[in-house]
Every structure is written in C-alpha cells, then in structure tokens.
C-alpha cells in the first residue's frame, strides 16, 4: 500500500485554487450519468448529497434513521468556527489555520488544515443564505463568541443548538434535491459492506432495517460520511446509533484506517450516575467561557459547595494556566480534571466530578444575561440531574466525545480504496491528535459543500469506470457474507445481552485506552478485548429474526465490529510511543505533566492496512512536514 496524500504544489495559500484548476471537470450533461452513493446524512453527508444533486449527479443517499434530519450532527451545541474576523480581534485565515494545527498537536497535514480555514468563511455565507438563524447583535449583524481553546471570538452559534440548525439547513437543501428528483433517499438502511469491483468501490450492501432485507446498490463512487466511532467506549456523548461498521468494513476491503487511537475526551459532561446509564450528555464547552472550574483544596472534603469558602477552593485550571485559564484545550482540561479526582478531590456522590460554577458570572452579568446565553443548557442539566445550576454549581466530568482518527484520505478525500471517499468525522483529515471546539461542524460542511463537489468530479472525469450492475458476482458475494454474519449472530443464542458485553468492552477501553494510557495497561487491554470478542461470539444472545425490524440485531452487528475495531485502537496506541493531544502515554510527559511529543520518531500519520483475518494489520506511515507552523511544545500557561 502506498500512501500518497496528493498535496498540490505551490505556496500554501494557493494550493487549493491551483488544485481546483487542475482537477478535470465533468461535462454538465454527463453528470446525470454518474450514480453516486452517499452513506450518512449528518452535516457531511447531507451537505455532500445536496451539493452533488445540485450539480446534476444522480445521488442515492442512505441513513440509519427514519429521517435524515436525525443524524448525530443534530446534537452539536456550541458552534462553528470561521475566520471572518467580524469582531476585529485579529483573526485571519492564517490564524485559524495556525491554531488548528497547533491545537491538533502537530499531527495533521498543513495543506488540509489551511484549506479548511480558507473555506470556513464560505460555509457561514452559505448557511446564512439557507436561513440558519445564527445569533445576532442588536444591529442585526452576526454575533461571535470565543470557544474552547481559542483566544479570540470566531465561533458562530445558534443558541445551544448550532448543530441542529446547521443540519436542518443541509437537510432542507437535501429535501429540495429529493423533491427535484436528483437525490433518492434510503432511510432506515444500514450499510453493512462496501462492494469492490476490479479494485474500485462500486457499491454497497445495505440492510433494510424495516424488514431485514439485504439490498445491493451500485454506483460509480461511494461517499462515506458515517461519523465517528466514540461509541466503542459504550458510554460517550455520541448518539446511540453512532458506529464504526461502515468504516470498518471499508477498512477490511482495503481502505487504510488512520490514527485510530486519537480519541477526544471532552471535559464538560454530566458525570456518570448509575450502571444502567445508556449515554453521557455533553454540557457545551461554551460554558467554560463564564463558568469557573474548581475542586476543594483538601482531598476528601465532602461539604456541599456553598459551605466551602473561597480560600479553600482550588480553581486549578486558572492556577495552572494563567493565560488560558478555564479555556485550555479539551485534552488538557480533561487530564487535569482526572488528575484532581485521582488525588481524591473529586466531588459528588461518586467523587468522579468537579464543579463548574456560574456564581461569579451571574453576579457580574446578571441572571438574565447568563440565561440568554446558556438557558437551554442549564435546563437540560436540571432535567437530567434534578439540580438547578443557577443555585448550585454544575458537576462535570470528562467523557468520550469525538474521534480524530478515521479512514485515511488524501487531499481529495479519497481513501486508499479507489472510488471510496470519506467525509466528516469518519475521515482522519484535519484535527491531528486533538480537535479544537467548533471545528468539526466546520470540517463536515467544508468536506460536503465545498470539497467533494470538486474532487469527486476530478475522479470521475479522470478515471475509466466500466459499467457494473448489482447482478455482478462481487455484489452477490458481498451480500452473502453480510447475510452469513447475521445468521451467525442470531445463532449464538448465549446468555449475555449485547449491551452487557458492549459495556464491558467500553470499560476496558475507558480504563486503558482513554484519557491516560500505559504500555502495560494497553497490553492487558488487548488481551482482554480478545477474550471479550471470543465471549461475544459464543455467549451473546440476539433475540428475534433476521428478516424483521430487529433492534437487538442492529446493535449486535455494530458491537461485533467494535469488538474487532477496539483492538486496532489499542494496537495504534501501543505503536505510538509518544504522547500527543488526546493520546497521552504516561511514559511520555513533561515535568508539568503535559504531553511530550517525539517529533523525531512520530511526526507522522499512522495508517493501518488490513492484512487478513489471522494476521496483524500493517502499519504505514505518512510523514508530516511542518513548513509554516514551527513544531513547538504546546503551552497554554
């Protein structure tokens, strides 16, 4: 396998323009002769489907949900970045680029990140034109706020519902193309495999979730926008159906998987409260703009928060990072929270929580201002916990949130499997080892609205694609494999439920491949995952039938893939003997307990190639070159 990132030549700011000029164009009249299969209707998939439909391609779009509008993107709260510099506080494309590369701890490609920053402004223009009701100043112009890890205000937002509003914009555009007949929608379909014909991705195998039928769909290219794999940990902020299945199947068909160990643990989530817990709820990072994070100075101090006097509180982020304070990047904040709790200073029933306190902000700005900014978040918190954050500080703890790793893609967003493009959280492209707040929405929409429409055209115009049909033997063979897996899952009829086994897998990953990792822990975790996988295939119980709406079976298929994929995460973590961003190996830290990178040996992307069932996957390296942002130790002091 050769990793060719296909980064265009020329100076950084001109690369994308130049590339767009050099890409071949598809004649407008020919576009409708191309069938494009888009999997996923989150921000990336919906924006791609709509834009490709507008261009005249014949698009088929698939999603698990009953409606494309329900994709996980809907839950994003805080906002979306752009380099508009409306507040006149010194922002620029260059600075957004710089911050993103640095925030990612120098494990992303400069050229990709620069393009992302360049496109960011057009995204805002487009979303506003669609009617996305972004927050505005009294004069009627767009409002901005600062957001996790940025020292300036470049984040656009729609209350605490930015993802929802952006997705409804993209969904509206998609619905318009459905009405125009350019996009055909296949909701309640789960893609179980990618069909490869003569080395190229030419189709998908889908399960109709309503009746369990297996369907084959052929096309000239496949676009995966299936989101991240945070649910490998069972508990995460991701929606319940978020999964790795389509991406993992693509990996098994020849698409390299990059940096699977790069996962993001978000510092501000509602703490776990019981073993029945089914998911974790994020409290938007925007809360850190006004909330102050603290713990009691004395370990084991169990007094209620209002009884702990000011002098006996430790505002540890403000103390340790005077210039960024509560706004340090997520990986840094999360590790510090864990550290405080490990020292016995955690609060609440479990001791696995710290306070996020708004008392000062309410005193300073008044309750009305705070309510306007965060009202719906406070309400959500109260609904879940029964506590009123206007009266008593919130309690937060880190939770799995986002996955920077994903299928490897080149500058065109094509994976190592020709004809398979990967967008949004499902690819690995722009966030390196740590994603900054409000940049996933930006990336998903950049990929879907403004990159794939060009690069897919370049591929189609420059590649000879012989006709295929779903009657091709490759389709039947791939469909048979999918059916066979389903049959096996139903046959086990063991004694443990899918959720039970998934929870156990999640604990192993959380303890050993989570916020802080050690070589011994990872090795142990690997063995444990193998055992669990064995147990899964011998002892899982999946009730019901294959040819029916069967939610247990859906879950079982996804968990079966997580059981395999978890090992790849662990292998990747073991192979990367350094700390960077969200990957923190305790053996590699500075005196101040920050991640210590090893740029001599690990300034590269690790891309894993599937090598067969009983063989170790092969690790490939794509070297990263930093010409514009000097490699430095991140410091948020």
């Amino acid at each position, binding site marked *: 396998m050769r990793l060719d990132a296909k980064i265009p030549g020329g100076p950084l700011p001109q690369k994308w323009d130049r590339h767009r000029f050099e890409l071949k164009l598809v004649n407008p009249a020919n576009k409708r002769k191309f069938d494009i299969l888009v999997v996923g209707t989150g921000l990336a998939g919906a924006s791609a489907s709509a834009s490709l439909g507008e261009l005249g391609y014949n698009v088929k779009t698939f999603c698990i949900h009953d409606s494309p509008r329900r994709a996980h993107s809907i839950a994003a709260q805080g906002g979306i970045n752009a380099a508009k510099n409306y507040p006149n506080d010194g922002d620029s494309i260059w600075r957004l680029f710089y911050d993103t590369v640095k925030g990612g701890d120098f494990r992303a490609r400069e050229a990709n990140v620069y393009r992302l920053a360049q496109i960011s402004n057009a995204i805002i223009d487009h979303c506003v034109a669609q009617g996305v009701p972004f927050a*505005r100043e009294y004069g009627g112009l767009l409002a901005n706020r600062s957001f996790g890890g940025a020292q300036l205000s470049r984040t656009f937002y729609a*209350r605490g519902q930015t993802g929802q509003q952006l997705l409804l914009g993209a969904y*509206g555009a998609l619905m318009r193309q459905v009405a125009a007949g350019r996009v055909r929608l296949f909701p309640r379909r789960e893609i179980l495999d990618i069909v490869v014909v003569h080395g190229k991705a030419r189709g998908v195998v889908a399960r109709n979730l309503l009746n369990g039928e297996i369907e084959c769909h052929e096309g000239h290219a496949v676009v995966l926008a299936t989101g991240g794999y945070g649910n490998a940990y069972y508990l995460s902020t991701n929606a319940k159906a978020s999964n790795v299945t389509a991406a993992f199947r693509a990996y098994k068909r020849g698409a390299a998987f990059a940096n699977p160990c790069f996962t993001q643990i978000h510092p501000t989530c509602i703490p776990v409260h019981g073993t029945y817990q*089914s998911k974790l709820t994020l409290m938007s990072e925007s809360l850190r703009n006004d909330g102050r994070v603290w713990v009691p100075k004395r370990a084991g101090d169990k007094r209620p928060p209002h009884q702990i006097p000011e002098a006996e509180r430790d505002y540890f982020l403000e103390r340790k990072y005077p210039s960024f304070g509560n706004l340090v990047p997520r990986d840094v904040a999360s590790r510090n929270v864990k550290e405080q709790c490990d020292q016995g200073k955690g609060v609440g029933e479990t001791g696995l929580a710290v306070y996020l306190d708004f008392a000062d902000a309410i005193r300073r700005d008044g309750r009305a201002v705070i309510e306007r900014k965060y009202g719906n978040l406070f309400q959500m918190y109260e609904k879940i916990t*029964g506590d009123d954050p206007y009266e008593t500080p919130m309690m937060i703890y880190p939770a799995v949130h986002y996955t920077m790793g994903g299928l490897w893609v080149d500058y065109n967003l094509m994976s190592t499997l020709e004809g398979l493009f990967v967008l949004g959280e499902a690819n690995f492209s722009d966030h390196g080892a740590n994603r900054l707040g409000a940049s996933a929405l930006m990336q998903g929409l950049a990929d879907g609205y403004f990159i794939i429409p060009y690069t897919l055209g370049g591929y189609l115009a420059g590649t000879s694609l012989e006709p295929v049909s779903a009657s091709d033997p490759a389709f039947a063979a791939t469909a048979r494999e999918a059916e066979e897996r389903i049959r096996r899952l139903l046959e086990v009829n063991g004694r443990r*439920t899918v959720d039970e086994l998934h929870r156990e897998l999640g604990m192993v990953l959380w303890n050993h491949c989570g916020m802080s990792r050690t070589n011994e822990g990872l090795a142990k975790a690997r063995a444990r995952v193998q055992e669990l996988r064995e147990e899964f295939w011998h002892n899982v119980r999946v009730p019901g039938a294959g040819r029916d709406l069967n939610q247990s079976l859906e879950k079982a298929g996804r968990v079966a893939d997580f059981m395999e994929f978890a090992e790849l995460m662990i292998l990747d973590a073991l192979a990367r003997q350094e700390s960077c961003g969200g990957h923190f190996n305790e053996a590699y830290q500075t005196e101040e307990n920050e991640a210590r990178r090893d740029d001599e040996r690990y300034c590269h992307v690790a891309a894993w190639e599937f090598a067969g069932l009983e063989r170790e996957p092969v690790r490939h390296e794509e070297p990263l070159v930093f010409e514009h942002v000097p490699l430095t130790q991140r410091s948020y002091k």
Partner: protein
Amino acid sequence: MSQSIRLTLKIWRQKGPADPGRFETFAAEDISTDMSFLEMLDVVNEKLILEGREPVAFDHDCREGICGSCGAVVNGRPHGHLRGTTLCQLHMRHFRDGDTIVIEPFRARAFPVIKDLVVDRSALDRLMQAGGFVSVNTGSAPEANTLPVPSDRAERAMDAAACIGCGACVAACPNASAMLFTSAKVSHLALLPQGRPEAARRVLSMVRAMDACGFGNCSNHRECEMTCPKEISIVHIARLNREALKAGFLSPER
C-alpha cells in the same frame, strides 16, 4: 438522591403493520429515579432478552432531546406529562413507587405503526420536500453580513426553528393535524429576509402537502402546543394562516 421504585407497565405490542396489536403488562422492578424513561425501558428489555422474549421496539438516538427520534404516548400524553420534555429527557423521578404506566405508540393516520412503539413519520419529510428550505445552491451565497437581520427577529425565527420534528403535535391533535410542525418551518423562514422571496410559494405548497400526506385540519384545539417538547407556540400557526391568506390572495402561483 436517587431512590428505587417499582412500576407496572402496560405496553402496546404489535408485531408489524398488519398485526392488530394489544397491550402486554410488565413489572419493572428496582427502577432508579435517576434513570431516564428510555433507560427504564432498556432495563425492561434486557430482562425480556434474557427470558428469551422479544424486547419492546422503540425509536431513539440522541437521548438528549434534540434528534426527535423518541416518542411514545405515556398515560395518554405524547412524551409523557412533563411539559417541554421529550421522552428521553423524562426522568423516573417524576413517577411514584407503585405507579402503573400505559405506553403506546403515537397514533395518527399519517403515522402508521411499524412495530410496537415505532411509527412511520416519513410524511414529515415529505412536508419538508414541499418547501421547507430556501432555494439556494452551494456556492451562490453573498457575504453573510450583507443581510442584517434584527436580533429579535432572528430570535423569533430561532424559536420556530427549534422544532425537532418528533411528531408529538400530530399525535396530540384530535384531528392528527401537522399544523404546528408545518407552521414552525413556515414561520422560521418567513421571519427571515432570506426566506421571503419564496414565502408565498412555500406556504401554499406545504399546506397542500399536509392534505396529500393524510394529516387532518387544524381546528384550534391547542393540544399540540401543550404537548410540544420544544414549546413551539401556536403563534406560528397564526403566522402560517396570515402567510397563506396573503399568498392565496396575492400570489400569481395560486
């Protein structure tokens, strides 16, 4: 502090669209008051699976009140009795030890039952296809700040845009009308200058689609507003009516 309660559940079971369906009774033991309603159903389902029975099918995804997937009629109310709350955000602390809870799917002509509590709400997508968007192609937008929108207008548009498309308003309406849902979209876009050029066409087309999809008429029962988990106001219905009237009289596309 959490407590443990016991409940009796009467849940609607229906194997498929053709099955007439019936209630089944389940005992839910040791339910923590910190659980969400869906977590309570998870616990019941885990037990059913281990007993070799089929778990209750229900739609859900985000479990934080934003995706609009979840929803069932709980003791006669879509999403349960707590105002402004989706089923996934309804916590068991709002029930008492020994309560009997009746759980059934959303019922409406336009929402056929698929299985147990799962219904087909694709009619809502078809309504959106009729005009729930601004016709702007990628690439053609002007600079975002060339079009100021007074902040109170933007806020009102956002109030309407908060609809999560769950369909509870339809389930609550004696006529199974989708008026609240449709008016939220019409209102969101009608309030913004970006939506004005197509406002007349949008409202007429979406109102027509409501009929075509099998939704009933609105006769001002206001059940929808009471039920809506996002507290979408019927003010938007009034705006839809005004827009429709205006469009009907003035638009050449009538």
